């Protein structure tokens, strides 16, 4: 074993490890609670003291995807054996399913708007980043700063004129409008990040390609793009997560057709009061993909959250 003055001692490592793991477990608790609550029955979810051991049920998920109403007294006497399992589950609580809820619609809106805006932000952002990185663009630094500064504006402050603009253009509460808006917000991130990634690719590769008779376009997509692919992919995930999580614009500019999941989930209520298992089920389905992406992103995390200001 090498002996170094900068290597922490065994005891120090243990001490640090215990504190960090302790913090991680505490910080994870609310998230675990969301997942657990999604599998609780209504009474279990609001039990005192809070239940750690409980009988898991998918009631919350059934409630999430359906709308229900109280059963009439005559219907309560009907045989339930040949009804589908989810109807039986709901009947145990004295309710009956009358239709599907809007959750899946809102979830798909999140997917369409998230992927749509990410696609455009990445295509346009990559092009702009390449130009900033490789050509002498007049006022380059000013333009880059301008692009970054658009992120400093409070969304609500920009929302007033955008609300008016969208109303005049017929873009209010449309997928196209939201994709356009999120593309604009994500462009600043994608230009800055991808610019950094392309800067790291030695310019000699392209020069060699140009000498071999490639056009600029060919050099761009045959040499630069493959080299920057990992960076662009991680940028795309960041854009996707932003659009996925965005709430302020979504709540102000959408109400029905194009509403995404974040403004919708808090409004989930069951028959008689807030249905926490259903809310937790909706949140779980919505949050878990982001956690998976976070694991995929972990090497580029720092770079993404600081707009490339910290690269290591």
């Amino acid at each position: 074993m090498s002996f170094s003055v900068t290597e922490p001692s065994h005891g120090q490592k243990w001490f640090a490890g215990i504190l960090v793991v302790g913090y991680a477990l505490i910080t994870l608790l609310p998230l675990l609670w969301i997942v657990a609550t999604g599998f609780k029955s209504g009474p279990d979810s609001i039990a005192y003291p809070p239940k750690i051991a409980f009988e898991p049920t998918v009631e919350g998920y059934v409630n999430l995807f359906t709308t229900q109403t109280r059963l009439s007294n005559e219907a309560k006497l009907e045989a339930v054996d040949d009804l589908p399992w989810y109807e039986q589950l709901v009947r145990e609580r004295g309710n009956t399913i009358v239709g599907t809820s809007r959750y899946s619609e809102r979830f798909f809106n999140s997917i369409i708007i998230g992927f749509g805006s990410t696609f455009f932000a990445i295509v346009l952002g990559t092009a702009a980043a390449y130009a900033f990185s490789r050509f002498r663009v007049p006022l380059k630094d000013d333009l880059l700063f301008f692009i970054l500064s658009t992120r400093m504006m409070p969304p609500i402050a920009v929302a007033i004129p955008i609300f008016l603009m969208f109303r005049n253009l017929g873009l209010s509460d449309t997928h196209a409008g939201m994709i356009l808006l999120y593309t604009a917000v994500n462009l600043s991130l994608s230009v800055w990040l991808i610019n950094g990634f392309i800067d790291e690719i030695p310019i000699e590769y392209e020069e060699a390609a140009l000498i071999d008779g490639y056009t600029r376009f060919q050099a761009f997509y045959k040499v630069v793009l493959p080299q920057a692919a990992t960076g662009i992919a991680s940028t795309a995930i960041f854009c996707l997560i932003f659009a996925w999580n965005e709430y302020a614009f979504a709540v102000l500019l959408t109400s029905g057709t194009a509403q995404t999941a974040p403004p919708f989930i808090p409004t989930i209520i069951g028959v008689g009061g807030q249905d926490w298992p259903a809310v937790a089920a909706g949140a779980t389905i919505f949050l878990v993909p982001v956690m998976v992406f976070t694991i995929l992103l972990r090497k580029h995390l720092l770079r993404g959250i600081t707009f490339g200001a910290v690269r290591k």
Partner: protein
Amino acid sequence: MDNVADKVASATPPSIAHRVKGLSDRAIAWIFVAPTIFILLAINIFPLIWTVYLSFTNYAVNRPNREVKFIGLRNYERILGDADTWATMQATAHFLIWTIVLQVLIGFTLAYLINKKFKGNDLWTTIIVFPMMLSPAVVGNFWTFLYQPQIGLFNYVISFVTGADPSSFSMIGDIALAPWAIVIVDTWMWTPFVMLICLAGLRSIPDSIYEAAECDRASKWRQFWTITIPMVLPFLMLAVLFRGIENFKMFDLVVQLTGGGPGNLTTLTSIDLKREAFEKWRTGFASAYAVILFVTVFGLASIYVKALNRVKQR
């Protein structure tokens, strides 16, 4: 000229430029940059100019037939002379200062501990980062459940630790607690952000500096204050800049948590602005409000960036 490609490039006769087919570099640069600039102008700059224009008028979205009049600086006067605005600013300042203080203290400590490179530190770092990546609105909404008196997990844990009755306090409902309820959730969510940046700072310090200090018999304590802190400071200041801007804009998390209540106690500026613009529909007034906020963020951020650059140069 220290590598082959450079030599090749410089040895290539200028005629190569003419042989390159297609558009000139300049045309490509324009084609590549133009759409981005256009979208940002349309969605960011044009609205900003429109906001400035509206801020001098009495326009109200819900009264389209009323004559739009120029009223000069009256909206600005009204906002700055309004005691409620200052109460809102105070709530925002409380939120900003405490979230930054707590996140810097906890974030730096965590980074310092993780940098001890114990086994599995990568895995635990990733786990700690989770809250930061999630939707603040969805998570904030769920925290209202954790904050429920009696049945809420948060109240239960606090009563378990302190012995207080879990139904005796309401983090969201009590006047004394609500400002802290939002600070706690924001700290839970964003401490990892400060932690990650501090960690990068700590890892950027070369071992050789500590080895040299060790040779000079500098105590660990002295090494910490004369090497670690000064070298991490630029990173820490960057983290504070990001958190400051983000929390000045704070809307989603707090609106879902407290809705600005009880009373106006946790009504941060963005929440107040939303009420003026989209509930009271005082568009001109709200536009002036937006301009004031924007100028404040921009002004504070640029002063701060100057200070940051000075620290970096040292």
